[in-house]
């Protein structure tokens, strides 16, 4: 890592600190993002969006658009495609709305033309008539409005999308025998990913009846599968390639209407069609963080140890399922991974509403409950008179243990994370001598290094790698993984270089193409380093053995007589043999050199319904301390410093690790202080643009001290675990706890805007007055 504090924190050495392999292409503008791609004869597609959050489609008249100059094709919803969805059991979407629109911005029609301007003009000519319906804007609102039409009529459960109830151990008994109990409620506001690159896709239905799709996606394999369902054609006829992707954060993890529309328009007009979403359309395509209302109850013994936890979450899912089934379970899954909870009850509900569909965002479904749990623990610590970090320490889930909900926790550096931020922030000295209106807050968290189960059930590997070594001495790595900016391709190069003992510049990677690369499930759930990493190591080890075998054969010596050091093979009593020579001998013996590697996560322990959400080969751990001041006059919260310690086992590539930690922390800062995917009472987004939806600018980012701690994980590739998502989670509660420490207010809602701080300060002074 670039930040080392050797005297205070033990930092594991990183495998590499060189530049990322995509750095030059990106900084020189050579990298091709989806919108940069132009094919011969390409047409431009534009979507027509619903102006209402909830309405019946009375009529869509395409004719005026079709008559416009330059127009090649126009489409509307009915009859065009089959329903689809990322989770096989909840396929409720259509590329273009069929009989109803269920959120403002939902695509209703699409048009392709020879120029973008012509396509826009034509889109404006399409006549859509609606019968406007009352929008369902929050879970349970229909109870106050009998007769209100549900988002998706005909479901027995009405707007209730999913209800889950899980109990592990005897929670009632835990509360009955408790020394003390505590309860808190919290509303975590929804937020958007705000990737720098808006979604874009180029679709081509070839004359032979094949489909080419180049798109800004995190999951080419899932997009290929979903597209096959939506189009009703065989998967093998579809080739999906991810372009260079300008950020995903979960927002590009499934098939989107514009991707299908590009293909359908292409089928209709015979040309490749590109569709690029506007920033406004990206806010409506959404799939961002669910707004969640939560309640937690805990039972404690005299020593400050948790006896039982009851956790309830109500998710506002928006108009479609997306990953919502998994999200619902995730809001209850990882509470036990940080703390030993002997008895645990979880109840979760997800509701349909007439808002853009929510889905996975960095920290998928674990960010919201983590915020409440950590805020709650701080208040319990205060009530019990125990230091907040000490209270956590008494409850940590031990390494190599099994939680009450059957999650297998492997290596854990959580204790080391706590120790690191405690000492780096000078916690005890500062907490005992606080400046006025300034406070310190602490929180910790855990995250998966890859989901243990795939999105659709199958027994196949989660990641596959094919490796070739050519007679030029170059190594080619083919893997379906998708580099969305996190450095996944660099990760492959670092591991291959290390495993084969060669220079990184021998290696080229070919990724994210269902036409040429073995399947990797995609860049989600922080799974890529763990799974593609292990797969590529297997392929590399096999290749290394092949090369060694050939050296032995050509020299007529036993395996034990050959030692490889870097790019040279040493045979006792002989001249060293170069890597390229070894490759030539091997090709002479075997033909073109190819190996493969694959990774399948270990089987999950749980056998209950919902046990598929939560298991992971390994968990990362994070702790954070925030130094915050609150201005009592205008309610402004200023974050002065953040200390973050993260356990990711072995860091594979120091700059990427640091980038992921900083990025996650800043994203968390935005969520706690300013971001809100909120809606006006009429169902309109508060501001679907970058002024109306503020995210932190670089000037809003305080100094961040990073410590990387922990031990190599036995299951991780060369000991590595995840870093892409975990570091976001503790930032939100750490800041809220610091606000509480600074001015003594309890904040139960994000984002913590000045308005809310002023209200809380007001209430506090009124309470005092009484």
């Amino acid at each position, binding site marked *: 890592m670039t930040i080392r504090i050797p005297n205070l924190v033990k930092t594991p050495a990183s495998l590499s600190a060189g530049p990322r392999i995509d750095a030059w292409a990106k900084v020189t503008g050579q990298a091709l993002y989806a919108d940069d791609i132009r094919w011969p004869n390409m047409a431009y597609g534009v979507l027509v969006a619903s*102006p209402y959050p909830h309405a019946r489609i009375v009529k869509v008249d395409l004719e005026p658009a079709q008559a416009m100059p330059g127009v090649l094709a126009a489409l509307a919803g009915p009859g065009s495609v089959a329903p689809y969805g990322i989770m096989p059991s909840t396929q409720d979407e259509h590329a273009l709305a069929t009989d109803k629109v269920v959120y403002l911005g939902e695509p209703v029609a699409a048009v392709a033309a020879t120029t973008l301007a012509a396509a*826009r003009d034509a889109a404006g000519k399409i006549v859509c008539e609606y019968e406007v319906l009352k929008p369902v804007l929050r879970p349970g609102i229909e109870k106050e409005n009998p007769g209100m039409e549900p988002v998706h009529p005909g479901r027995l459960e009405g707007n209730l999308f999913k209800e889950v109830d899980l109990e592990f151990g005897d929670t009632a008994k835990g509360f009955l025998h408790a020394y003390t109990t505590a309860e808190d409620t919290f509303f975590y506001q929804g937020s958007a990913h705000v990737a720098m690159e808006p979604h874009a896709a180029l679709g081509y239905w070839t004359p032979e009846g094949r489909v080419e799709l180049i798109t800004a996606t995190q999951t080419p394999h899932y997009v290929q599968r979903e597209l096959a369902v939506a189009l009703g054609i065989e998967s093998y006829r579809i080739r999906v390639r991810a372009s260079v992707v300008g950020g995903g954060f979960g927002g590009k993890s499934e098939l989107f209407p514009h991707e299908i529309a590009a293909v359908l328009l292409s089928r209709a007009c015979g040309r490749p069609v590109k569709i690029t979403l506007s920033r406004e359309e990206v806010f409506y395509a959404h799939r961002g963080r669910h707004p969640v209302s939560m309640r937690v109850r805990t039972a404690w013994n005299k020593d400050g140890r948790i006896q039982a936890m009851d956790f309830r979450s109500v998710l506002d899912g928006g108009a479609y399922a997306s990953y919502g089934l998994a999200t619902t379970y995730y809001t209850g899954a990882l509470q036990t991974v940080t703390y030993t909870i002997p008895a645990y009850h979880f109840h979760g509900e997800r509701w349909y509403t007439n808002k853009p569909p929510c889905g996975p965002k960095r920290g998928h479904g674990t960010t919201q409950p983590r915020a409440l749990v950590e805020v709650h623990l701080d208040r319990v610590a205060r009530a019990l008179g125990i230091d907040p970090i000490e209270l956590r320490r008494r409850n940590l889930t031990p390494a190599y243990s099994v939680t009450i909900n059957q999650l297998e926790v492997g290596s854990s550096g959580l204790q080391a994370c706590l120790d690191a931020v405690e000492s780096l922030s000078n916690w005890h000295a500062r907490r005992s001598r606080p400046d006025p209106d300034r406070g310190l807050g602490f929180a910790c968290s855990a995250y998966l290094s890859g989901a243990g189960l795939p999105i659709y059930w199958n027994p196949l590997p989660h990641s596959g790698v094919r490796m070739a070594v050519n007679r030029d001495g170059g190594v080619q790595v083919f893997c379906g993984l998708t580099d969305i900016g996190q450095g996944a391709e660099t990760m492959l190069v670092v591991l291959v270089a290390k495993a084969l003992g060669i220079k990184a510049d021998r290696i080229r990677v070919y990724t994210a193409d269902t036409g040429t690369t073995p399947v990797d499930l995609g860049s989600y759930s922080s799974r890529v380093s763990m799974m593609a990493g292990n797969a590529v190591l297997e392929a590399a080890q096999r290749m290394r053995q092949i090369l060694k075998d050939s050296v032995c054969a050509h020299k007529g010596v036993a395996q034990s007589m050959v030692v490889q050091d870097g790019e040279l093979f040493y045979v006792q009593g002989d001249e060293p043999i170069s890597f390229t020579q070894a490759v030539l001998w091997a090709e002479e013996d075997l033909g073109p050199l190819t190996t493969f590697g694959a990774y399948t996560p270990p089987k999950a322990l749980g056998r209950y319904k919902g046990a598929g959400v939560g298991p992971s080969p390994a968990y990362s751990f994070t702790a954070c301390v925030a130094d915050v001041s609150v201005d009592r006059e*205008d309610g402004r919260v200023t974050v002065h410093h953040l200390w973050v310690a993260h356990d990711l086992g072995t860091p594979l590539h120091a700059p990427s690790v640091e980038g992921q930690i900083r990025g996650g922390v800043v994203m968390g800062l935005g969520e706690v202080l300013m971001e809100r995917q909120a809606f006006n009472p009429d169902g309109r987004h508060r*501001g679907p643009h970058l002024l*109306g939806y503020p995210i932190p600018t670089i000037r809003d980012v305080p100094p961040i001290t990073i410590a990387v701690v922990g031990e190599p994980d036995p299951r991780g590739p060369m000991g590595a675990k995840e870093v892409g998502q975990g570091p976001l989670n503790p930032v939100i509660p750490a800041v809220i706890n610091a606000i509480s420490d600074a001015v003594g207010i309890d904040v139960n809602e994000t984002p913590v805007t000045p308005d809310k701080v002023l209200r809380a300060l007001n209430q506090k002074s009124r309470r005092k007055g009484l």
Partner: protein
Amino acid sequence: MTLHTRLVQPSTAEDVTRLLGEPESKIFGGGTDLVPNRTWGLDTSGTWVQLRAVPEATMISLDEEGQWSIGAAVTLKAILEHPKLPGLYPLLADAIMAVATPEIRNQATIGGNLCLDTRCRFRNQPPIWRLGLEPCFKSGGSHCYAAPASSQCVAILSSDTAPAFIALGARLKVHSRSNSRWIEALELYTGDGDRHLTLAPGEWIETIRLPSRPPLGVFDKWRIRKSIDFPEVNVAISVAPGENSREMRMVLGAVAPGPIRLREAERLLAQGPWDQDRLVLAAHTVTGAIHPYDNGQMGVVGRKRAAEHILYRALGKLRNMMGEKGVSA
């Protein structure tokens, strides 16, 4: 429909006036506000008239009476980098530094910032957002979403330099078909968010003239983030030391369709020494002087508190400056 806007660059004031007389024509400064508005379909001008070829509008000059003039087409960056102006008028430099980001300040003009179109959370939204909505006052309708009881548009003037120029006592040279005239900076604004400038069709601002004896002054701004954001509220205060009495100007911006002169606070501060209590009282008058609506980023209560807060902070800063300069408070 895709708009086809003509961009013209006349080289004389007369041609500017003539072109502005055409329907749907507008002065185009740096385009940092007009272009995004056009992209969203909020600006439908047929002709954009640039001033960059009009000498008077592009110069910073000093006349014989020691008065500085800034052409309307001068960029914010050029003012900040001028060898004299930032030192002479730090209040103005602070206000300009508070505008948006360096990239925008490189391009945006001072005239453009003064004449900045008003903004509202219910109008300055992208195209799909506005589709199913009945037009508001500013969009040609007869309704206000921010203030349903209001008989006129309450969109906000978000200019950071407008309060500064008013506090400085700047005068604006307005060109029209028949002649040119000078107005006080405050006279530029109507108070109606829809037609927020007092300029008649064909009229335009050529130069801004600053007083020869710069008053002491401070500028402050409250915004959500530390960069790029428009103000939720801003304030400019100046004190011009006189023989017997001092002339004071307190101006609040971004809470209404035009800047607001805080006369009651000015009176209060003129009545006695600037002790803590008086500053608190003066700042508190703002809660009665402004009536913000929920059309900014922050809520109404928050904006009022922020206004009071930055006003108090600015007054404290000004008192310290006066102390340093030996001006009696």
